[in-house]
């Protein structure tokens, strides 16, 4: 667990709801949930969730910090927005799920080897490198994210798909050499660095 986490724990003690309100994207909506369960029933991967969004909100109110942040529940969100459009209280549930996942990852509490987390991180790293996604590298990284031998197996499994994409001119092996990217690399990175700096400062402020 990170040093940041220790600081946050210190600050909020047993008020996890307050912590979420202050630090998680759209977190101040959590208290508005009326526990109707519509989101839980609307989630496409609902059965795969350790805790449904409804439950997560209740756990936050009940102060179950460790259970929430170390859960892999919110990593199951496919961003389908079904819950958002159906929630009678109009909670931005999808965003809260993303926010919780990000916050957990940030504090180093998210479960180890969570595949979606790994992919989401890979995706982010891939896109921030050049400003645009390089699908080939993303795919290869994905297959190798669990180590070399796993990766070779995965690559073989996915070979037919790769071939199909290649013949349909929808996968270009030359991308490995660099591929697309924004021209203003310097500006692009400066912008992202700045954004991250502002956000870190905010969390630091709340965390201290």
């Amino acid at each position, binding site marked *: 667990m990170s040093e940041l986490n220790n600081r946050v724990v210190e600050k909020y003690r047993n008020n996890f709801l307050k912590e979420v309100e202050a630090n998680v994207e759209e977190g101040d909506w959590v208290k508005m949930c009326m526990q109707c369960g519509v989101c839980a029933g609307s989630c496409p991967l609902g059965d795969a969730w350790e805790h449904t969004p409804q439950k997560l909100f209740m756990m936050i109110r009940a102060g179950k910090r460790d259970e929430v942040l170390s859960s892999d529940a919110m990593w199951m969100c*496919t961003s389908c927005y079904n819950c958002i459009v159906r929630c009678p209280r109009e909670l931005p549930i999808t965003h809260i799920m993303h*926010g919780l996942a990000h916050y957990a990852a940030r504090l180093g509490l998210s479960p180890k080897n969570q595949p979606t987390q790994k992919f989401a991180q890979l*995706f*982010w790293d891939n896109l921030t490198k050049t400003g645009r996604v390089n699908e080939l590298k993303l795919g290869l990284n994905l297959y190798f994210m669990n180590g070399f031998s796993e990766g070779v197996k995965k690559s073989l499994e996915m070979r037919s798909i790769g071939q199909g994409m290649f013949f349909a*001119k929808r996968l*270009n092996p030359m991308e490995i050499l660099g591929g697309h990217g924004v021209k203003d690399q310097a500006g692009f990175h400066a912008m*992202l660095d700045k954004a991250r700096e*502002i956000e870190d400062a905010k969390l630091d402020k709340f965390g201290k």
Partner: protein
Amino acid sequence: MAKKEYSFYPGCSSQKGASSINYLISTNSMCEELDIQLNHIPDWNCCAASIGYAGGGELPRLALSARNIALSEQAHPDQDIVATCAACWLATKETKERLDESADLMAETNQALSAAGLEIKNNKEVRHMAEVLIEDFGYEALGAKVKKPLEGIKIAGYVGCQTNRPFGIDGESYENPMYLDKLVETLGADPVKNYDKKVQCCGGALAFSEPEKSQDMIKDIIGAAYDGGADMIVTPCPVCQMNVEVYQDQINEKYGTKFNIPVVYYSTLMSVAYGRNAKDSALNGQIIKAKQLEAIANK
């Protein structure tokens, strides 16, 4: 009708050699027929889709889309931003709305943008291509351009998630949007009625990280299309298109199904119906060939 111009955000998957380059090619053909000029936003960057959240926090993600909006404001001040990718549209539109709602976020975002020498005013509409077709043209005008009606083809309109929620097309319901069906009809084809997996999630990015769970859902999406007697599936979203098309072999292997159904974009259908050839309609981009469309295109 005068030429219509839009500030176009193609997105990563429409780049050359990327997974939905066929979407871009067919869109270009469709736009030529409709006298639409798409002005690409210069030096656009990735929107981070909805999966970038693990690495990117709120502000860095907003900054990405804000940069695109700012660039569009500079280059095409009077044009709406139009995207073809559902995720691009959603991320950009969401950013616009979030910045509208919060003066603090707006200020912070501009602070970040200034590091790249940019500034966002945030006074643009962010629209999906489907919206442009329906709202700026309308079914009647779209139908008037049809040269080769897609007669005898039964098509399941798979709307999916992000073109539908949380924004969707004005006047359509989230649970049963009808615009793809109406479009299919407009082009002379036959929509599958009561396609009950029309707005079912395909797993999105989780098709990579949680393949079993996603393929289980994709199986139902395709199965329901077959149940409705569909010859092919049409979609407005590159993630939907990719997920529903490319895993059919794996699904067949796992579930013993015999899926082999083409999945096309609405732009593919329109390009063919508007009389463009197979190449212009990017029919070679189909991994599962859309033979009926090829036949019409080659006529």
